[in-house]
């Protein structure tokens, strides 16, 4: 556990850089982490996923990819286009949540 300053705000993160408390998250932090994850700009579709995940997090953990596709109506293909290389994990990181738990 370490403290990191993201977008001018000091937040607690774990060894993988995930925020420890979803309450410390801000939209500015999301934009900054997205850039680090290789997503230069967050579109309305990105925000739709981020917000849905924050609303549906259980114990601070982000939903799995299959839960996201079922819940938002956004296809698996589009999720991999929006958040390339590990969509559920990237969304969790950007949304200030813990990694999803579960195999599907």
């Amino acid at each position, binding site marked *: 556990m370490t403290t990191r300053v993201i977008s001018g705000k000091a937040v607690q993160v774990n060894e993988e850089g995930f925020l420890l408390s979803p309450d410390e998250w801000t939209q500015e932090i999301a934009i900054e982490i997205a850039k680090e994850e290789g997503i230069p700009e967050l579109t309305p579709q990105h925000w739709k996923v981020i917000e849905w995940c924050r609303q549906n997090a259980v114990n601070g953990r982000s939903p799995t*990819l*299959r839960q996201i596709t079922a819940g938002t109506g956004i*296809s*698996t*293909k589009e999720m*991999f286009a929006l958040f*390339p*290389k*590990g*969509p*559920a*994990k990237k969304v969790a990181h950007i949304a200030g949540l813990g990694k999803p738990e*579960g*195999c*599907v």
Partner: protein
Amino acid sequence: MANDTRKMAFICSKGTLDMAYPALVMGWAALGNGVDVTIFFTFWGLDIIRKSRQDHLEIAPVANTSMKMSMMGIHADNAGIPNAIGVLPGMTALATKLMKDKMKALGVPPVSEYVQMLVDGGAKLYACKLSVDMMGLKPEDFVDGVAGIVTAADFIDMTEGAQIIFI
């Protein structure tokens, strides 16, 4: 960037319901971690990507020493299902139904949906040419998303640097 991406390749050689899932689950987990995934279906593993078969995979209790009476809802500690019972008509269908029900209760998708998820997630799926020829199959027997029918040598070429998992 492209060079430092971790690569995993799965070889699916079995066509029973229990042996179909390992590559699907691990392949999906790998895609979720940004890993490049290639799956090579050979021999009975071809059933996993055959249109007419993929949702009809089965698990037989006969000679399956890991399948216990307790899985059938009968509390008998470690007692296995006697082969003499396993051979009765309907026992394979019953065991298959029990496994499918358990998977469904856990939110695990059926094989066809799982394969589609992997394709949508960017996994590259190939059928083994020798097995396809041996079984007299055609490209149209396979589900959409199967990238091609290739030889073992092609598979070895395309998985250079990958971690290979044989199932």
